[in-house]
């Protein structure tokens, strides 16, 4: 009972403070939770443990058995972590993984010169990130690269270990040359994946009252943010790593860590976006298709082609993968955007419409990855149980783990995948309709919504056929 009353109170006071943003619940206003958010210790300890786990994973990847299904690194990274990222961290917490991610830790320590003090007197060159390289283009490229080498990366412990090492080295290098988390914002492919989908997640860090910020000339929150965000100006959560440095730095307690409805950063009120983000959204749709085909489809030749890096079949696979991502999907979506422009009578340029309408692809993309994950990882959960029962490969059988039965997962799998995909489609269709409604003046929003909606339906049908057909 007390919990409910507390919830109610926090809800109402939050609403009263920010009438312009209803339907938020400020977690940082909960007296029992506040100390854990304010202190740097909880995240620091979690990240340190994660860093230890990362080092162990890299060693296991390099020294362990070559065959993926017996390698600790493969099972931990590609079955346990990747599943948690797509089914828990992103849909429930947006960039929450980034708040505990160990990859940029060494670089950040060097850059800040301390472990727990936050961003005070940065070391390194502290250059600004070049204008030309801003946006999501690099991350789209990183994502495409991963797709080209996915079959090897996901099945060879050594390759996984080298990829992790390369990510750490890149983040160390970039944090010494550039300011703040340049690596995380512009390069990290995991960030490229989590960032856009964080707009859908039910968590956000925002200022409570803009007038308080307006009167505060030091902007200590901006000085403190490792991600270079200014909370007052943040239009969405794509680049917020939920590290809570702004909350610690704000002298007026004007920062809220809020629960919010799903999809809050999407919709007509959130235009415009750039072509780079639209392109990234399409690349993630294309990659989900390719991963589903390679890893869960019945096409053996495709698996071999994707696996034999450097061979002729692999070149064919690469050509197909790139054509799908660079020509087919962008082409189809451009056609949808063009039709939308005709049907809505919007005077905006095609590129602008392309970027705006691409917002509708985020829910579908996220849910497609979730459905793929169910298909990809659920049948392999027994490997995680085996690994936990015998983490060092010494022939242990920790009680209760090795004997777990996951057979039921196979039976619910297909229905669950279909349900997840259809849910994503429904959300995307609603969004497409909303966007159309906002862009027509005196024409029918139904017709204007049709092209992008059809694009989503056709894509969903394609994935359904691959996963459950």
């Amino acid at each position, binding site marked *: 009972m007390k919990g409910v009353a507390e919830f109610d109170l926090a809800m109402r006071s939050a609403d009263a403070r920010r009438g312009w943003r209803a339907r938020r619940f400020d977690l940082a206003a909960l007296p029992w939770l506040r100390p854990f958010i304010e202190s740097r210790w909880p995240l620091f300890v979690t990240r340190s443990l994660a860093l230890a786990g990362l080092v162990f994973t890299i060693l296991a990847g390099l020294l362990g058995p070559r065959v993926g299904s017996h390698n600790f690194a493969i099972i931990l990274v590609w079955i346990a972590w990747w599943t948690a990222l797509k089914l828990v961290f992103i849909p429930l917490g947006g960039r929450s993984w980034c708040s505990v991610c160990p990859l940029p830790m060494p670089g950040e320590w060097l850059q800040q010169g301390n472990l727990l003090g936050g961003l005070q007197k940065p070391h390194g060159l502290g250059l600004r990130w070049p204008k030309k390289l801003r946006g999501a283009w690099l991350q789209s490229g990183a994502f495409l690269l991963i797709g080209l080498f996915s079959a090897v990366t996901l*099945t060879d412990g050594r390759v996984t270990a080298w990829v992790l090492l390369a990510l750490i080295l890149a983040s160390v290098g970039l944090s010494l040359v550039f300011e703040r988390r340049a690596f995380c914002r512009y390069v990290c492919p995991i960030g490229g994946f989590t960032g856009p989908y964080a707009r859908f997640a039910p968590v956000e860090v925002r200022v409570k009252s803009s007038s308080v910020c307006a009167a505060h000339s030091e902007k200590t929150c901006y000085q403190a943010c490792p991600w270079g965000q200014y909370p007052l100006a943040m239009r969405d959560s794509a680049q917020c790593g939920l590290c809570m440095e702004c909350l610690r730095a704000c002298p007026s307690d004007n920062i809220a860590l809020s629960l919010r409805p799903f999809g809050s950063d999407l919709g007509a009120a959130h235009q415009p976006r750039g072509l780079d983000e639209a392109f990234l959204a399409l690349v993630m749709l294309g990659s989900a298709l390719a991963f589903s085909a390679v890893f869960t489809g019945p096409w053996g*030749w495709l698996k071999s082609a994707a696996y034999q890096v450097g061979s002729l079949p692999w070149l064919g696979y690469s050509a197909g993968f790139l054509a799908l991502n660079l020509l087919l999907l962008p082409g189809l979506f451009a056609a949808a955007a063009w039709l939308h422009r005709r049907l809505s009578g919007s005077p905006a340029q095609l590129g602008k419409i392309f970027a705006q309408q691409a917002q509708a692809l985020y829910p579908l993309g996220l849910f497609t990855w979730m459905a793929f994950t169910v298909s990809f990882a659920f049948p392999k959960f027994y490997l995680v149980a085996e690994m936990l029962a015998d983490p060092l490969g010494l022939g242990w059988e920790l009680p209760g783990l090795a004997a777990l039965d996951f057979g039921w997962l196979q039976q619910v799998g297909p229905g669950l995948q279909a349900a997840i995909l259809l849910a994503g489609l429904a959300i995307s269709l609603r969004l497409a309709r909303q966007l159309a409604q906002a862009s027509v003046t005196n024409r029918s929003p139904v017709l204007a919504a049709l092209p992008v909606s059809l694009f989503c*339906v056709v894509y969903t049908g394609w994935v359904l056929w691959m996963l*459950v*057909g």
Partner: protein
Amino acid sequence: MTKTSLHAVLPWLVLALLAALVLLLPLPVAAAAPRARRFRIEASQFAYSPAVLRVNPGDQVTIELAPQDVVHGLSIDSYPVDLQADPGQVASLTFTADRPGVFKLRCSVTCGNMHPFMTGKLQVGPPTLLWRSLGLALVALAAALLPRFK
């Protein structure tokens, strides 16, 4: 109930009904008399050939697994099937396809790096889940395009 609110609710009721029909309606498929079927499946890294088996519910299915290069296995989701054989040998097994649906064949012996993804599929009867899902996708499309009453 006033006229406008009925107008607003009616299309949604129709769509809900449609969705329920798509989900629950038995599909008009002519039941074929069960018969015996035999598949010889050649397995090599990392493919089955044939990789897709289509049978009717009730069929007596015999599978012969014939690995071509290294030792392979074959298990089928939700069916008590697990075969393993060395290259050059053939392992076989007969079962009744009594569960309709689409099920994955999976290699059950580590045969190389892509082994966890060596799959095929057994299709017992029509792919109803796919059809119903596609139907629901169209219902969702209709729902999204429905005129909005304010």
